[in-house]
């Protein structure tokens, strides 16, 4: 009897163990398989290409270059120009955008009629495509017949050549970014704000805090985690900025980021090397440089967060506990 049951029993044990051990992994397998195929493999393959000289028209013939693509890149002033443009456009689009989003979220957080309508309305720019938004803005910023110069004309400002001057061009591009992403970030903030307990506001109100004081001392600390999250998200977005400047410039100008590369971002430089000059090796090197920059930013952000969390924060509790009838 026992001899005939034993193998079955052990088989059951294996199945049982597999059941416990393997099934969860099988459930999450799709993500890892897809990540492996569409994330990890391209990443590694891109690195492999970046060590070679490869032309887009003949991807099968590769010539080993070692790290030459990278060293050349770091000596190329186009790279540093693109990096600094990416940074400046990133700053002038991210900072106002997040501040506006914060204000907008604060307004939406009030009890008001038709709040759902406003919340949806705020999100609509995000739902439009980059191409459509950029095209419309390009027409608005057009030199001779654009609406913005037309309006400026009433104030005696001569037609500004937005595209061919550095700061006007970068400003114009950042308005496209701001327009598209402010609502999105506002909704993130709003969601976080709604999680702040109402009694904090009530207590603050009893303490005689104004709306602005409430916003500063209750709302902003309450959603600080979300603010950090949106900063990280916007930084990643800014580093990869591509569609807006490409369409803003139109044609060959878009790819080079203007005749003087005055608004060429890293994404555009990558595109120019890969799809205008057909040098995939050099384009891959730029892609990896961008990847490394993002990792660097991420690490910096972690370090910064840790340093900030170590510094003692002003304690909020005593302020609330302070007797309200001081006067």
């Amino acid at each position, binding site marked *: 009897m026992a001899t005939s049951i034993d193998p079955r029993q052990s088989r059951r044990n294996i199945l049982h163990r597999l*059941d416990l051990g393997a099934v969860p992994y099988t459930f999450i397998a799709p993500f890892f398989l897809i990540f492996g195929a569409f994330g990890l493999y391209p990443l590694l393959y891109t690195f492999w290409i970046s060590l070679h000289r490869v032309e887009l028209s003949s991807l099968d013939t590769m010539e080993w270059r070692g790290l030459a693509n990278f060293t050349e890149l770091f000596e*190329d002033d186009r790279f540093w120009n693109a990096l600094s443009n990416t940074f400046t456009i990133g700053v002038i689009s991210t900072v106002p955008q997040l501040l506006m989003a914060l204000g907008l979220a604060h307004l939406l957080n009030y009890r008001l009629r038709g709040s759902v309508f406003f919340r949806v309305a705020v999100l609509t720019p995000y739902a439009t495509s980059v191409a459509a938004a950029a095209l419309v803005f390009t027409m608005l910023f057009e030199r001779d017949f654009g609406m913005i110069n037309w309006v400026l004309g009433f104030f005696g400002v001569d037609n500004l050549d937005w595209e061919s001057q550095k700061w006007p061009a970068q400003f114009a591009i950042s308005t496209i970014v701001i327009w598209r992403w402010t609502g999105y970030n506002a909704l993130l903030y709003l969601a976080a704000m709604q999680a702040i307990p109402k009694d904090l506001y009530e207590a603050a109100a009893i303490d005689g805090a104004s709306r602005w004081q409430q916003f500063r001392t209750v709302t902003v600390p309450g959603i600080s985690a979300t603010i950090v999250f949106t900063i990280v998200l916007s930084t990643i977005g800014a580093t990869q900025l591509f569609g807006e400047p490409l369409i803003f410039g139109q044609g060959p*100008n878009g790819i080079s980021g203007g005749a003087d590369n005055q608004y060429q971002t890293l994404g555009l430089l990558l595109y120019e090397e890969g799809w205008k000059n057909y040098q995939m090796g050099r384009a891959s090197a730029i892609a990896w440089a961008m990847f490394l920059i993002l990792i660097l930013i991420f690490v910096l952000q972690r370090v910064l967060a840790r340093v900030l969390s170590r510094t003692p924060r002003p304690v909020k509790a005593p302020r609330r506990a302070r007797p309200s009838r001081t006067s």
Partner: protein
Amino acid sequence: MGTARKRFGSTLVSATALAVSLVLVAGCGSGDEDKARTKDGKTVISLGLFGVMGYKETDLLDRYMKENPDVTIETDVAGDEQTYYTALQTHLAAGSGLKDIQGIEIGRAKELVDTQADKFADLSKTPGLDHFLPWKQSQVTTGDGKVLGLGTDIGPMAVCYRKDLFEQAGLPTDRAEVAKLWEGDWSKYVDVGRTFKQGSKDSKVAYMDSSTGLFNAMIYGDEKQFYDEDGKLIYQDNPVVKDAWKLAADAATSGLTAKLRQFQPGWDPGLSNGTFATTVCPAWMLAHISEKAGPANKGKWDVAKAPKGANWGGSFLGVMEDSPVKEQAEKLVAWLTAPEQQAYIFEKLGNFPSSKTALDIPAVANGTSPYFSDAPIGQIFGDAAKEIPAKQVLGRKDGTIKDTFSLGLQLIEAQGKSPDDAWKTTDERIQKLTR
């Protein structure tokens, strides 16, 4: 019993999950359809085009479909050639997403001949091939005689000008007299611009749209531009390029241009609102001008002979080797580029035939353009076509280098850089992109 069923159930679930994930991963790789695409039992031929090539704009394709009831033609037209070519390169590299027939712009011809010849079908056996201009056909022929495409049009050049703006500046408006003003030398064309600027009563009106047009007109009047026959870069020392650069820079710094970029925003409304008085126009540009300047400006525009003949642009239609409907596509290409059809497109749009035979068709030879004050465009462009150098040396990166030069001229025009600095930047850029 209960536990056994449960165990079996969860094993099934995990197996399914695994299978589903495998299918998800694999699903994206397959799906290649090698079979000829059909719709309602008809053969579908797809065309990838750019700009205004005349096939979507006229009823030619409808006529072909009527004559060949078993064929359906689909077109995909990109407005901008740079965008089109980038996509074409990517599709060629990936080996997917290609149309059965792809348009080829002249600036890209050499690169495709050098690097992608095996992906195109050989059209050298097409009957009646000898009706094309010999230099046109040689541009898409490989060393061993493979023909990658058939010519659609060529770009003989003239100067398009606004009669009303010439009149207010005190210049003659008759096209023969206007042509006399700059006969023989492009620098005279710039001199006329100075007279125009002095005489013009409206300081907002520029003489020409951009210095790039002038630059192109000048370099394409010679058989060599950026490369020599051996594929060596010669633009640095080529006097043609240097002279063109000098004169274009001169025009740009003298405030004669409207600082516009051709085919980009601002240029189109400029055409309709008359912010500039002249533009160097290859034959294929007439369609664009008449469309964008609109009916309100009909009769205000005219065409005058250019100082010197040159060929700017012109395209080809190639058939992809892997196309499932290769034979039908070849037949369609041969029909579309036949003399009668080329003459028809010229009549409708002004794209100038690349077929020798078509040049003698009366509709071409005696063709006039009602939009451009009934200018005898058949004769003007026909004469210009005869001045085109019989041999034209193309280079691999012609198109990209041309774009880089136009960026360089913008540095002078819109950015206010000195011509020397702009040349230095342009030179560095070309060195980098051809490296």
